[in-house]
């Protein structure tokens, strides 16, 4: 009995917490007249939707494409550079690597909104703002790389050391031991961390807003904030935009929920 009382309480709490998401989705289906009613309706009276219209009018295809490119670039480089580093920092344990881990953890804390001042000034001087999406990728990696290394390192730590030693005794080079033995065992942790990096970069805002001056290269987040700034009251359109933008993220999250939870807790506390 007590178990079911607790479950009902938990259900209510979860529903209250997720209410903002619910509100976004039902606003998508409200009619213009219903939108500004007070008291508001909690279920659309005459459901209609403008998915296609908003998608086309707000140029969402181009914005999403730019976000996708930036997210792919960021994730690709982070994976390529970060995986080896995460492995090395898990494998080798001495004063130097402790210092390196310390530096990585501290760098993870630097807010983009503060780093963007020197990065903007320097990139402008170096001419990097001519290739704005590339500039955002470079800047965003400074944020995702430490995050990825910390998360991934935790899954490399779980691979028993003896496996590498055995491979070395068998005559494998350190490189073969890494690619042939250890990497396949850590592939789960790598994938989850990479997906988190991807989702984070897909929704990135500060660097895109600051470093991309040409609308043509702008990302979905900046497109959304421009939309909000331009209309202020077309909430149905704004929520439709938001829903189109975040639904893939939420689906990816739902599919991987269990693994994401496990990966996050391992990286942050252990």
């Amino acid at each position: 009995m007590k178990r079911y009382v607790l479950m009902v309480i938990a259900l209510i709490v979860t529903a209250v917490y997720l209410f903002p998401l619910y509100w976004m989705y039902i606003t998508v289906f409200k009619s213009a007249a219903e939108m500004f009613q007070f008291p508001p309706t909690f279920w659309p009276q005459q459901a209609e939707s403008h998915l296609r219209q908003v998608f086309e009018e707000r140029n969402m295809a181009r914005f999403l494409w730019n976000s996708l490119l930036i997210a792919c670039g960021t994730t690709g480089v982070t994976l390529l550079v970060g995986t080896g580093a995460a492995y090395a920092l898990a494998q080798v344990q001495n004063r130097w690597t402790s210092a390196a881990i310390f530096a990585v953890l501290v760098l993870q804390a630097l807010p983009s909104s503060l780093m963007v001042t020197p990065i903007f000034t320097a990139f402008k001087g170096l001419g990097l703002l001519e290739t704005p999406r590339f500039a955002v990728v470079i800047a965003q990696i400074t944020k995702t790389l430490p995050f990825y290394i910390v998360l991934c390192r935790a899954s490399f730590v779980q691979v028993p050391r003896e496996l590498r030693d055995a491979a070395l005794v068998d005559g494998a080079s350190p490189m073969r031991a890494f690619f042939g033995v250890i990497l396949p065992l850590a592939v789960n942790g790598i994938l989850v961390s990479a997906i988190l990096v991807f989702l984070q970069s897909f929704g990135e805002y500060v660097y895109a807003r600051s470093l991309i001056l040409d609308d043509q290269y702008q990302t979905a987040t900046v497109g959304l904030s421009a939309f909000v700034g331009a209309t202020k009251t077309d909430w149905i359109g704004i929520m439709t935009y938001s829903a189109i933008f975040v639904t893939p993220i939420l689906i990816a999250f739902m599919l991987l929920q269990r693994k994401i939870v496990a990966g996050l807790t391992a990286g942050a506390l252990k």
Partner: protein
Amino acid sequence: MNKLLSRFPRENGFEITLAGFALLYLLLFAGLPLLYNIVLSFQQVDLMEPATLLRPFAGLANYRDVFSRPEAGQVLSNTLQFVGLSLLFQVVIGFLLAMLFLQDFPLATFMRGLFLAGWIMPGLVVGVIWKLLFAGDYGVLNHVLTQMGILHSKIFWLSDPQWSLYAVIIANVWLGVPFNMLLLSVGLAAIPADLYEAAELDGANAWQRFWGITLPMMKSTLGAVVSLGAIMTMQQFDLLAALTQGGPANSSQVAQYWSWQLSLQTFEVSAGSAVATLMMVLVLIVAVIYVRSTRNERMV
């Protein structure tokens, strides 16, 4: 350089190379900008002039300029309130939820996982949704609060200078709760069950068990969660951009947003970098505390 390399054990050469790439990248694109920001804050920066490293030296003029602005006091107090109140509510709500979901009932882990949906959403979208919830005339928050008898008249959350900062804090708490809950759950789950059993045998009630066992055992986790929460709150930008943009009349302005506005909207890079430097010092102090507090349990 060779001398330095030879200090490493030979068999780790491959691993050192791997780590080297990442560290070099971070040094170039995070370490150098960090230093460059400090340099900028002591220079007179004019973005219209061709870029050079050597600009006129300004001494402490930029810092004096920032502090002499009329909004400086308000920004300072807002930043403290923003971080302090966000932390307080995130940790308390996160703790309560963590304890709830640690009980044994059907779907507990699944529902706890659902909370992270809030964490995975782009901050800007969360801000935009909250902007709709906060709407003064037709907003659902005003409706619910009046129905519950908490409010008697509508609050204009985002355009009333008395409320704007608190509106941003509410949205930020919503965003931060899942992560807090998750980390606190891990800490709670690690407390040995026999401690509670022994205390129960000795006749301690639930309240006494909480103060006598749970809280003391959670001390290091709480330390990590609080410092991590402080870091994430000081990083918060997207919510501010979506909700109030620091307004009305700087009533919800905080340091990290102010720095960005100065540098990238009014192009006063000197002032912006001075604010950024001050704020970074604060973030780095908290980061060092965080790393050292988790390091004690770390198996390094």
